[in-house]
């Protein structure tokens, strides 16, 4: 039985059974090691799906995103190389932020960061600067989309999770970043950049011209809901509520505006354990999320009340249990549809 151990993020200590030798022992020949790593990566995904313990979350996220190699021996060198590469980008590009070609991008990022959800952490000047650098570098290295509002939100979970390793406060929002050593902060910045880049690689069409990824996903959501809960679907339709009117933001900001930050972090444990978690599985989560409110939706009897409700869902007190339930339902939906695309078809 595989389970989280205090040192589980090292993966190598994860055992198949109490009697099996630690997998680290397998590292005798390159082949055996590769096999072991694949096996471990799969185990790690399985474990992470149901939530990652806080102490091992930073390391696990880096592994799941593919940023950190599964092979323990290669990790320090990889990290060092990637961190160096990121700061080379800064050196190379960041001074161009006030040039004609880039000033619009930079200006938009610069004004968006301070007005993000009032997380005290993000409002600290050092953190604001980090966010600006990460977003600017990503934007100019991905000109097909550039910087689109909503991408700024996606930096936060990575940054907060990676910071947790280096602060004593239980509540990361109360942490004083200026007390964190500069080199530590630099590493956190580079790690955040690369993990966010990996995430965005999978959903870049959400942010390219005309946002085709979002348009398509909202259509798929509508199709899905019409099959799993026809009553809700018909109710929305009857009151002329269009899915794009409420679900656009669900896709553009990956539900981050709909649930508290700690819930997003828990959600991302699973997203990173699922193949195409942020694009494909997210769709099922959105469907489960909508249907979760079916009682309230069916009680509302007019366009206005419905839309106001859907844009301000009462999740302020949500905790991990709520997310776990949501994910279980999403998984059930995915399972029902994965092998049966016509399942429930009208």
């Amino acid at each position: 039985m595989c389970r989280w151990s205090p040192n589980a993020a090292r993966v190598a200590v994860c055992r198949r059974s109490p009697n099996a030798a630690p997998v680290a022992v397998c590292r005798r020949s390159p082949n055996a090691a590769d096999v072991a790593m694949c096996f471990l990566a799969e185990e790690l995904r399985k474990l992470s799906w149901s939530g990652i313990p806080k102490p091992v979350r930073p390391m696990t996220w880096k592994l799941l995103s593919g940023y950190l190699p599964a092979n323990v021996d290669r990790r320090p060198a990889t990290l060092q190389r990637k961190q160096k590469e990121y700061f080379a980008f800064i050196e190379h590009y960041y001074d161009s932020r006030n040039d004609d070609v880039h000033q619009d991008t930079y200006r938009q990022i610069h004004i968006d960061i301070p007005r993000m959800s009032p997380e005290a952490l993000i409002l600290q000047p050092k953190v604001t600067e980090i966010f600006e650098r990460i977003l600017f570098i990503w934007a100019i290295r991905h000109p097909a989309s550039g910087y689109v509002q909503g991408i700024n939100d996606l930096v936060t979970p990575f940054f907060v999770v990676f910071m947790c390793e280096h602060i004593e406060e239980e509540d990361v929002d109360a942490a004083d970043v200026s007390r964190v050593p500069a080199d530590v902060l630099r590493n956190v910045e580079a790690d955040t950049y690369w993990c966010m880049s990996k995430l965005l690689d999978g959903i870049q069409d959400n942010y390219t011209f005309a946002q085709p990824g979002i348009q398509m996903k909202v259509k798929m959501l509508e199709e899905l809901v019409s099959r799993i809960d026809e009553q809700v679907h018909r109710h929305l339709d009857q009151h002329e509520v269009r899915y794009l009117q409420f679900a656009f933001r669900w896709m553009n900001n990956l539900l981050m505006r709909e649930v508290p930050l700690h819930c997003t972090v828990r959600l991302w444990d699973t997203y990173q354990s699922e193949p195409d978690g942020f694009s494909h599985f997210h769709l099922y989560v959105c469907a489960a999320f909508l249907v979760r409110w079916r009682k309230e939706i069916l009680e509302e009897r007019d366009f206005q009340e419905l839309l106001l409700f859907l844009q301000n869902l009462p999740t302020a007190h949500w905790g991990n249990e709520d997310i776990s339930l949501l994910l279980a339902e999403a998984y059930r939906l995915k399972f029902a549809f994965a092998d049966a695309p016509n399942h429930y078809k009208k």
Partner: protein
Amino acid sequence: MEAIWLYQFRLIVIGDSTVGKSCLIRRFTEGRFAQVSDPTVGVDFFSRLVEIEPGKRIKLQIWDTAGQERFRSITRAYYRNSVGGLLLFDITNRRSFQNVHEWLEETKVHVQPYQIVFVLVGHKCDLDTQRQVTRHEAEKLAAAYGMKYIETSARDAINVEKAFTDLTRDIYELVKRGDITIQEGWEGVKSGFVPNVVHSSEEVVKSERRCLC
């Protein structure tokens, strides 16, 4: 219980990113000012009743749009079903004023065959010391486009009520005169529920709405 209202008007609020669209709407609909507010993505929905004459209430449905260019493919779908609009610029940001023309062009293309009654709003007028656009030139521009001009501040609650109510009143007059008519398949104006009152000239007209272009 549904409040009784004479008409429902759909309004759209547009303008460059960070000119204060969401803050203005929140001040109007919720009566409060938020120091920070996440950038709007896509379109947000708000609503409020206004009394334009004693006993005559209009329900406003307000679409708050994202200012960033990338969201234009989403936001422009909302122009067509709007009867009125607030076009905002920030008086401390000259560029947002220079873009007013572009915004009008953008809506004109996508609102056909209808037209939106716009008011030009110079926002953040509490920051007068940082002003980059004079009242005179804004008024001149508004007049050139046949719009009214008003300066507002969401922070200090200056003219916020007036901006929305004046626009509502102007639309109401156009509806009363028959210049704007209710049509099926168009959400800009809807007739409300008013017991024991017959709308004479304001009755639903199913014919083609006259184009003001």
